[in-house]
């Protein structure tokens, strides 16, 4: 099923029949939105962990954030390609969206460093959960900061033109967005199931020893 969706993903941009920069836009923005969504999901699971105390939320939160980070990295990559196609540079500080993702990417990479550094157990689960909550609080605050910085400290050189979308383009965009979201969902379920299987196998092995 995931395969069919990936196909849909490729077909849709070809429909658009635009320049590369427009095509990337159809993937870049949905990926960015999906990344936000994943981080949000991770934070919700984190909140549930702290509130309800059920262990499974730890893994769910972790996988959601893992997905979010992957999509975040993809956002940066597609954003870079877009910048290259639109303005001829591989990176620009004037795209607030891109800078925000850079900050968030760093933040969530540190999430994994935190998990790596702590031993498995309730302490790690709780600390990760709290950190995940800080992440979603950081999103709007960082955005504000970057806005302030770009207005006052680093005056914008390039203006960012979001493409005007006509009806058919908008439809294509929606299809892409749906496809990317579904892809993320599938990946989430797959990874979660995989990790759960891992954990069950290990438990089984221990019981048998």
């Amino acid at each position, binding site marked *: 099923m995931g395969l069919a969706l990936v196909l849909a993903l490729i077909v849709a941009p070809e429909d658009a029949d635009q320049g590369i920069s427009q095509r990337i836009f159809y993937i870049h923005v949905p990926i960015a939105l999906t990344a936000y969504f994943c981080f949000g999901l991770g934070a919700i699971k984190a909140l549930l962990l702290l509130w309800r105390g059920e262990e499974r939320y730890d893994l769910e939160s972790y996988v959601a954030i893992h997905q979010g980070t992957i999509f975040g990295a993809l956002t940066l990559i597609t954003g870079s390609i877009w910048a290259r196609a639109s303005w001829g540079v591989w990176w620009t500080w004037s795209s607030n969206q891109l800078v925000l993702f850079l900050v968030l990417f760093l933040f969530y990479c540190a999430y994994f460093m935190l998990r790596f550094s702590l*031993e498995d*157990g*309730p302490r*790690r689960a709780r600390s990760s959960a709290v950190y995940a909550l800080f992440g979603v609080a950081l999103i709007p605050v960082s955005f504000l900061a970057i806005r302030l910085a770009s207005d006052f400290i680093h005056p914008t050189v390039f203006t960012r033109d979001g493409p005007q979308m006509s009806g058919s383009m908008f439809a294509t965009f929606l299809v892409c967005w749906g496809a990317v979201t579904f892809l993320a969902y599938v990946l989430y379920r797959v990874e979660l199931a995989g990790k759960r299987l891992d954990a069950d196998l290990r*438990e089984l092995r*221990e019981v048998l020893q």
Partner: protein
Amino acid sequence: MIRGRAIEKRYGRKRVLTGVDVAVPVGGFALVTGPNGSGKTTLLRMLAGLAAPSRGDLVVGADRSQVGYLAHEPLVYRELTALENLDLFGRLYRVPERRERIGMLLERFGLWDARSERVSAYSRGMTQRLALCRVLLHEPDLLVLDEPYSALDEDGAALLDRELDALAGARTLVVATHDPERLARLATQRVALA
């Protein structure tokens, strides 16, 4: 006072406790025995309220202000003096007539002369005695002691014997020990961990 059934504690993949039942009535004196690594410390931490079981039920009929926990480590600040340490914990535990109580405890455990010296200058035995002062400071209803005799010399051990004699029956005690015979006469029950 304490009622626990089918207690299980896991740290990630490591299973530290499995299928533990424990029931200690008010005023009881429970001895927890078992080899190293059997989870004695983990169980006592749970009874003290520092950790919750991964599975199973555990009900402890005393809240934080009524529990005194003696860990493997002394839980006192190295850079502060005995007086300062006990004063801090006395405040946090809202001990009434704090100064008198601190003085009395320090004297009882033979630390009065060293009261204004930093803990970093203490011997291991003295630090352990200070830890005992900290545990008894707020007159807790439930005392959870993890191998209290370790690090104590002859005199310290004798002091502790006296204390436990006085406390048995009046308070609820749970003591993990490698030397159950020493306290056999006071114990009302045993909990053996595999």
